[in-house]
């Protein structure tokens, strides 16, 4: 490790402290993206199933939710939640204020609502694409709705949704950069700090771009592995 410390100390911009600053940013970015993806996925599953419901009173509101969140910029959604929560009457006296006054939670809320909207539509597409014969077969076996979903529809729908979902994960990683606009020091926020400290935009932003690139490729690699395992029956031979 000594050589690394020496190398960093001889560097003007990438000193030990800036590299650690980037590291902290990386941790924040990964946390933000990972937590919002997990919660978004959990939320989107029931929403996607309800979105395929025949009753318009059930599927229309969910359609409206996904349409609005997919049709407006994430930056606006973030601003709306981040600046908006402060002005909800009575929130400053309630217990929620303790959570919401930190910038991290409004950002997390915005990201969760956004990714849930996209994931709902991805899952819905996959559920709708289930061949009718499979559902008829399940009915013929006497399975009820929840059993059909659990055993027949969802396992294959998840597989079909995988390629589109990997895009959504990368989209979320890239979108998380705007968290830096509401005082969160994520990777981009760290790069901004380094830029303003040393007035070196090329070094600061190219370095952070390279980190994002590595993250993107790791995600792609993981999903390729998953697809290879789960979609083996669709592989070219």
């Amino acid at each position, binding site marked *: 490790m000594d050589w690394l410390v020496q190398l960093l100390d001889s560097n003007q911009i990438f000193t030990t402290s800036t590299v650690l600053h980037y590291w902290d940013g990386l941790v924040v970015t990964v946390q933000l993206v990972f937590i919002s993806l997990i919660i978004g996925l959990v939320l989107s599953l029931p929403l996607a199933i309800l979105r395929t419901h025949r009753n318009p009173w059930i599927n229309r509101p969910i359609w409206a939710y996904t349409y609005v969140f997919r*049709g*407006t*910029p994430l930056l606006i959604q973030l601003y709306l939640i981040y*600046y908006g929560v*402060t002005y909800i009457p009575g929130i400053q006296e309630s217990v929620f204020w303790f959570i919401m006054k930190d910038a991290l939670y409004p950002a997390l809320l915005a990201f969760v609502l956004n990714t849930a909207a996209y994931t709902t539509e991805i899952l819905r597409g996959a559920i709708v694409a289930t061949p009718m014969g499979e559902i008829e077969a399940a009915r013929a076996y006497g399975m009820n709705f929840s059993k059909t979903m659990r055993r027949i529809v969802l396992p294959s729908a998840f597989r079909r949704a995988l390629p589109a979902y990997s895009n959504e994960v990368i989209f979320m990683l890239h*979108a998380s950069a705007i968290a830096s606009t509401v005082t969160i020091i994520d990777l*981009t926020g760290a790069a901004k700090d380094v830029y303003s400290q040393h007035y070196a935009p090329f070094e600061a932003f190219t370095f952070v771009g390279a980190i994002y690139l590595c993250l*993107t490729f790791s995600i792609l690699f993981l999903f390729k592995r998953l697809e290879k395992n789960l979609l083996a029956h669709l592989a070219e031979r």
Partner: protein
Amino acid sequence: MLDLHGYGPTIFTGAILTIEVAIFSLIVALVLGLLGAIAKLSHFTPLRLVATAYTTLIRGVPDLVLMLLIFYGAQIMMNSLSDWIYYQYDYDFYINIDEFVAGVATIGFIFGAYMSETFRGAFLAVDRGQIEAGIAYGMTKRQVFFRIMFPQMMRHALPGLSNNWLVLLKTTALVSLIGLTDMTRLAKEASAATREPFVFFIPVAIIYLLITILSEWGFKVIEKKYSAGVIKG
């Protein structure tokens, strides 16, 4: 009635600016995308490598990071260029990097990469026999491209194009972060001044939604035109 505290007209001009940024970047992206797709399909290896590097690198990095890199980086490059010219030729030369140009260039540059992929797939979807037929008629390469490849390619490219356009439109909100007074920035300033964020951000969100709805409708019309003669199953 909605009280915008007199900010209504300002936000309207911001909306116009947003649309301008979106349309100009779309033009840049379309040109870069076509060039990128042609480069990717060319038989000349260095060209293909450059195009592949371009699309891979750009699509792997967040747009905000690229925007900051290009905007601040271009500023620094301009500074050192003007210093160099001053020392060498004793001539005072300086161009301020315009936010509008920087924003349009960055968004166009980013979406050029996405467009390249769309166009590449669309070009590959054109039946090989069509091109051979064109050559058999004695058309030049240029004629084959503009008369046969391009019109048929557009039909395959349109779904991807409309998707890219909708993402591009939402990305224009980011130009507010490099100092351009588009409607996102104006709404932010107005809500900070009046302490009423909902009053300003919700109308802005609705304007974005309206543009989305309008463009979805517009693309349906164009798609109909380019799918003339195609039997839908």
